[in-house]
């Protein structure tokens, strides 16, 4: 057979082609995963150690997933008969199934979004060059996503459970098996659609960073909700103390239990337990209409209605309702994913275009006490960092957190007027909040302060190629960090001042002096750590790619705890023991001067270290290139 004839036959053979392409896509996914385990050759020992640790974590995760999948399969062997037998066993299985599948859905969504946001999606340009139609490429993407490790983790257990249910109750077998296939197809389509949507949003750098910023702030704000609700609940409880059962009543109940009449009553309560069991069964079998659209609920509904003693709660028709929902959702999601896919491929490198601003240069103002070269290093860092996602987060997060803390600990609030709050006094509470603001401002800057050179990307080469000394570089970076910390601290302190406006006015300048003292001690540590444990990062990202070296982060946390001790100790003595705001101010001023005097020689030493580590810093950035 000639080559042309073979080519023609290959073009005609539709199913063979599909299988070959599907295999190629599956292989691509697994090869990428395997290569990421091996990692590429690293030049420095530190980079190699980090790569090994990452590989170890991935291997452990794989092991956990593998063992978990086997465990689930074993569990399914016991769960299927329990589901069929009814009673408490069925209740437990249904609750576990609903919870577990719900968790799987959330995990899958989270990882799809996270991976797509990190740029782990398909390389669209490469796909466009393949001699495959768009629709087929889309189908292959969906099919290949079935090989997602999170999905594979659940496959053996669910297949075994559904298979056994089908064997034990043939009447519902068809619906159960169909639901299983649809459920997995739906999960894969759902994850892929989410990934496509995120890729569409994130293909524009600026849009991606703003979306991530807003999402992160929203997420953080939501984590405060329980605290606020708790505070609100506490306040209500304080305002209505009579609603609580009096202690005398509780004692009476205890006495009653011990009497013979009490025994009879307990028997009646036991029959109530049976009622509770019935309620649990009813709850397990009830699928609220607002929850059923969730694929996990629709699948469990089908499985619940296709199994169990006859007549089950509800009818067998319920099983087909679940199947219907799954079919409908699959069709809708497939359509949506196809639309998103076409939009992605229509313009794979799309962007809204560069935003042009007035072509201003860096400020020419030389900061007092700094050389012009160190000043320009500081300006460059400030401008560059404040344009990143993490830089912006570092500016706003302390204020957001302090809004919640200052509200919760406000005078007259539940916590502020509690025994502890009253014992400390409003001035001490305000001082502690101000100290918290200082700590949070420094904490927010950790990714920047502890990795001052790794955040510059190829700007580090520009810096290293320039005629500037290491001392200028270290000093400039330290001043930039100080300005950034101060800018994030000031609004946070203002928030505390608004909620605690009756606190001694001297507290606020004392807080600023405390910040100066703390930063002066922390800056040399950060300078040293940045030079010893650099990591090339992108501050436009929130995940691991945007974080400082793990070792640096650990040293930073410990150091922060230590350097804040002097200001905290002296502040407490001045306010809680001597109750003198003046003493507070003077002590913090004294500390600020001493710490600055200590900081300068330490920063000078850090400059010396940087001189010796210039090449290591350059290679760290080059490693990422």
């Amino acid at each position, binding site marked *: 057979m000639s*080559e042309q004839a073979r080519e023609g036959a290959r073009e005609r053979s539709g199913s063979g082609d599909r299988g070959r392409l599907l295999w190629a896509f599956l292989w691509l996914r697994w090869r990428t995963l395997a290569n990421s385990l091996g990692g590429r050759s690293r030049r420095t020992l530190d980079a190699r150690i980090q790569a090994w640790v990452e590989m170890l974590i991935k291997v452990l995760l794989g092991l956990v997933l593998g063992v978990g999948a086997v465990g689930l399969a074993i569990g399914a062997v016991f769960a299927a008969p329990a589901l069929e037998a009814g009673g408490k066993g069925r209740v437990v299985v249904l609750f576990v199934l609903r919870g577990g599948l719900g968790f799987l859905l959330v995990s899958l969504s989270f990882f799809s979004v996270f991976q797509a946001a990190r740029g782990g999606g398909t390389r669209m340009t490469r796909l466009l060059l393949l001699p495959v139609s768009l629709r087929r490429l889309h189908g292959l993407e969906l099919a290949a996503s079935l090989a997602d490790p999170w999905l594979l983790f659940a496959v053996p257990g669910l297949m075994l459970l559904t298979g056994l249910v089908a064997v034990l109750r043939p009447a519902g077998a068809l619906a159960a098996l169909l639901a299983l296939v649809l459920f997995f197809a739906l999960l894969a389509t759902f994850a892929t659609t989410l990934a496509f949507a995120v890729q569409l949003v994130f293909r524009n750098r600026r849009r991606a960073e703003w979306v991530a910023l807003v999402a992160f702030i929203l997420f953080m704000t939501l984590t405060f909700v329980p605290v606020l609700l708790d505070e609100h609940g506490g306040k209500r409880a304080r305002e209505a103390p009579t609603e609580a059962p009096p202690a005398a009543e509780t004692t009476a109940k205890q006495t009653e239990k011990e009497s013979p009449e009490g025994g009879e009553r307990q028997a009646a309560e036991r029959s109530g337990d049976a009622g509770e069991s019935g309620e649990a069964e009813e709850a397990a079998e009830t699928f609220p209409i607002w929850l059923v659209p969730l694929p996990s609920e629709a699948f469990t509904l089908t499985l619940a209605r296709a199994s169990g003693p006859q007549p089950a709660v509800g009818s067998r028709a319920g099983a087909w309702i679940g199947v219907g929902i799954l079919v409908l959702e699959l069709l809708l999601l497939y359509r949506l994913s196809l639309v998103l896919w076409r939009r992605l491929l229509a313009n794979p490198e799309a962007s809204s275009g560069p935003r042009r601003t007035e072509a201003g240069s860096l400020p020419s103002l030389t900061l007092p006490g700094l050389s012009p070269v160190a000043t320009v290093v500081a300006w460059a860092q400030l401008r560059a960092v404040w344009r990143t996602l993490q830089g912006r987060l570092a500016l706003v997060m302390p204020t957001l957190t302090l809004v919640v803390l200052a509200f919760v600990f406000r005078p007259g609030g539940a916590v502020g007027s509690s025994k502890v709050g009253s014992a400390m006094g409003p001035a001490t509470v305000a001082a502690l909040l101000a100290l918290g603001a200082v700590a949070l401002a420094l904490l927010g800057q950790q990714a920047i302060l502890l990795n001052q050179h790794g955040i510059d990307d190829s700007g580090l080469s*520009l810096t290293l190629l320039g005629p500037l000394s290491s001392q200028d570089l270290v000093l400039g970076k330290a001043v930039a960090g100080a300005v950034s910390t101060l800018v994030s601290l000031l609004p946070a302190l203002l928030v505390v001042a608004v909620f605690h406006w009756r606190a001694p006015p001297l507290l606020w300048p004392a807080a600023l002096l405390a910040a100066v003292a703390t930063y002066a001690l922390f800056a040399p540590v950060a300078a040293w750590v940045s030079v010893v444990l650099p990591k090339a990062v992108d501050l436009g990202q929130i995940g691991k790619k945007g974080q400082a070296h793990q070792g640096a982060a650990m040293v930073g946390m410990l150091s922060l705890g230590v350097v804040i001790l002097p200001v905290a100790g002296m502040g407490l003595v001045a306010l809680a023991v001597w109750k003198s705001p003046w003493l507070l101010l003077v002590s913090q001023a004294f500390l600020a001067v001493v710490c600055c005097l200590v900081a300068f020689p330490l920063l000078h030493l850090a400059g010396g270290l940087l001189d010796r580590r210039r090449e290591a810093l350059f290679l760290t950035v080059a490693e990422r290139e």
Partner: protein
Amino acid sequence: MSHPLPSPEEPTGLALETRGLTRTFGDFTAVDGIDLRVPAGSFYGFLGPNGAGKSTTIKCLTGLLRPTRGEMRILGLDPLAEPVAVKRRLGVVPEDLALFGRLTGMENLSFVARVHGLPREVFDQRAGELLELMQLGDAAGTLVADYSHGMRKKLSLAAAFLPSPRLLFLDEPFEGIDAVSSRQIKRLLQSFAHRGGTVFLTSHVLEIVERLADHVGIIHRGRLVTQGAMDDLRAGSGEGRTLEEIFLDVVGAGTVDDGGLEWLGG
């Protein structure tokens, strides 16, 4: 046996000289004892196949990497002993282009100008001219992160020219640059060399080097296999030979004869 380099007081007429320059990464020797001699005011083309050690050599010469062994003298100064003084006289376009992604084009230039201590009015004038030459005037206020590769390359070139250096190190400067800008940059480099500046340039495009360079060095597997004036090189290798032919001879490149890859284009 290598002799020590002359002291800075001894005029050699060389802008750049190395003796036994070596750089290793673990067991791998990227640059293996090269002796470069770049005359002042020359246009030196530094050639070699991929992975030959060109970029590593430039990184050693510009202070980004420390040589494992060997000596260097740049504009009469020892870059290891006086790095800041040497860097004041250099302009560099390195492999990674050395730009802050989160600064605008103008801010990057302003950073370079202020690190080199240029007065404000000098900076304004030079930056304006360079941006116009590189056709980046409209993009001066755009973040470098939003630049295309060609725009970054042009900005990196502008940053290298800005402090008016005496010696330029350019690693693949024309890669990704459009024909119009490329022509203007070539003219600029030629006039820079005519005025006494020295250009040390690497490129894969041999035609560019042949047209611009008056001196050539060829590195292969970390070793400098040949070096000298272009005319001498041509004269020594036979009548009418192109740089490409000389290069292929020197690096011993294999050829694809007519019998190879029959399936291609069949």
